[in-house]
């Protein structure tokens, strides 16, 4: 395809993707509390609002805590599972791989509703920790996929060599497997963290009536009209995601993680 056509096409797609975010960034620095673009006067006070307004700050705190804990739990579930599937021949155990991928494949509202009926039935509905467990299950797919990819890229002869030299299973895992798999653990954690930070429906259906995460807070605020803090939080979220994925790309192989070369490792 000709170069001009390609440039124009990429420019238009880029514009389509960036336009809403540019406008939101614009209204977020508007000094007045009205929704206007281009901004009439410049102010960063709506960014301060996220950290100084007690309601927004507690929502920020809730979101970050939820994302940190649920991503950790998701990795804790995915790592032994991916390791087992790589180390052992146990075809029936693949059922857990399917279970791990299912919540993410199905429409999110289904996982959310399943969690709601479950927590309501067992009587823990509304407890903050139920959101951590729900998010961990909902996002376990991400570390599971990155880790499975990571394990397939490990050269088995390395492990074989360690075994021949007399290392036991535990030593091999700690000294050979873990260092090789670490980048995949980090990127799996990063993906789960960013998505958990942004997740609305599962969080809303599990703890929506007792606590507010940032997406829940934005949605609730949206129903009563507009405040510029929504815009500043949006910019904060986009920046956070871009920085984290940028770091993953900087220290890992992003095209490979996204499946560009997954057939090589097998």
């Amino acid at each position, binding site marked *: 395809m000709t170069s001009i056509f390609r440039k124009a096409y990429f420019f238009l797609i880029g514009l389509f993707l960036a336009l809403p975010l540019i406008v939101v960034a614009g209204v977020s620095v508007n000094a007045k509390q009205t929704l206007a673009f281009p901004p009439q006067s410049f102010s960063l006070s709506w960014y301060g609002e996220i950290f100084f307004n007690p309601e927004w700050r507690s929502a920020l705190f809730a979101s970050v805590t939820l994302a940190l804990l649920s991503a950790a739990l998701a990795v804790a579930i995915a790592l032994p599972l991916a390791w087992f599937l790589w180390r052992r021949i146990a075809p029936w155990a693949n059922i857990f791989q399917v279970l791990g991928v299912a919540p993410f494949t199905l429409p999110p509202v289904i996982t959310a509703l399943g969690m709601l009926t479950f927590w309501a039935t067992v009587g823990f509905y509304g407890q903050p920790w139920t959101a951590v467990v729900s998010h961990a299950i909902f996002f376990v797919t991400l570390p599971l996929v990155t880790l499975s990819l990571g394990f397939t890229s490990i050269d*088995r002869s390395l492990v074989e060599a360690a075994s021949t030299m007399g290392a036991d299973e535990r030593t091999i895992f700690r000294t050979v497997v873990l260092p090789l798999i670490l980048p995949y653990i980090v990127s799996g954690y990063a993906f789960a963290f960013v998505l958990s930070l942004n997740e609305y429906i599962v969080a809303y259906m599990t703890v929506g009536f007792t606590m507010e995460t940032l997406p829940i807070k934005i949605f609730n605020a949206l129903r009563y009209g507009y405040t510029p803090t929504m815009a500043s939080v949006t910019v904060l979220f986009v920046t956070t995601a871009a920085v984290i994925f940028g770091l993953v790309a900087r220290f890992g192989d992003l095209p490979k993680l996204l499946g560009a070369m997954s057939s090589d490792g097998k």
Partner: protein
Amino acid sequence: MRREPPQTLGDYAPLLFPAAMLTIFFVVPFGTMIAVSFFQRQQGGFYTPAFVFDNYARFLSAFFGGVLGFSLLLAITVAICCVVLALPFTYMLTRMGRKVQVLWLVALLSILSLSEVIIGFAWSTLFSRTAGITNILVALGVMSEAKALTPSFGAVLTGMVYQAFPYTVLVLFPALVRLDPTLTEAARTLGASPLKAFFTVVVPALRNTITATLIMVFIFALGSYLLPQLLGRPQHWTLSVLITDQAIYQSNMPFAAAMAVFLVLVTLGLVALTVIAGRKGEAA
């Protein structure tokens, strides 16, 4: 170390925690939801164990049929728009330098991870009267005065294409990277224009990938639960929105669960189709 079957019971130990977590917190909740879908609804938001088909019988109403038809139609439209836009984009992206590729992938991932709340808010701002895109058109002299473009079907569609576009690119990306570049080179050497090579060589070679991607984006769009609510009118509500509405605001859990079970069945049927399309792709 070669892969070997587990010999002792101890070899199964690593599986214990993941298996327990997934069973207790995914299989059991899923089962609970299916059970609740057969329960009897009581006044005031409660429900009692029973085995009735009332909740499923409500599917037969014209209202439900309308919502279902609209949901499917909307998801199909989103899937087609996304694949048509994303296929040439991803194809050209895979032929670019690594640095440019990574930059675009980071941008796409960042947008993909955005909450529907945020996407909905961003587009409602862009489509608003006071801060929206129509102001630019007025400044350019195309329109006489700014107006709100939301709520409308166009706004819902745009928002959902925006949400699903990065997903479509990421689904297409691996298949297009692996596409043999000599295929198009051969066509070019034989005198085909780049556009002709794309449509006569790349698109047919990827037929099964395209089918699978269409279905996956369709499922993704079917799951959109907030955008139709934030950018559309009540007649633009989809099955996902309706499920949320019944569960939270109407407190009718059994009916919400029945609709969710139905949505699962539709999705699973489509996943099966994707797998079949994928198998055919491998055989070809």
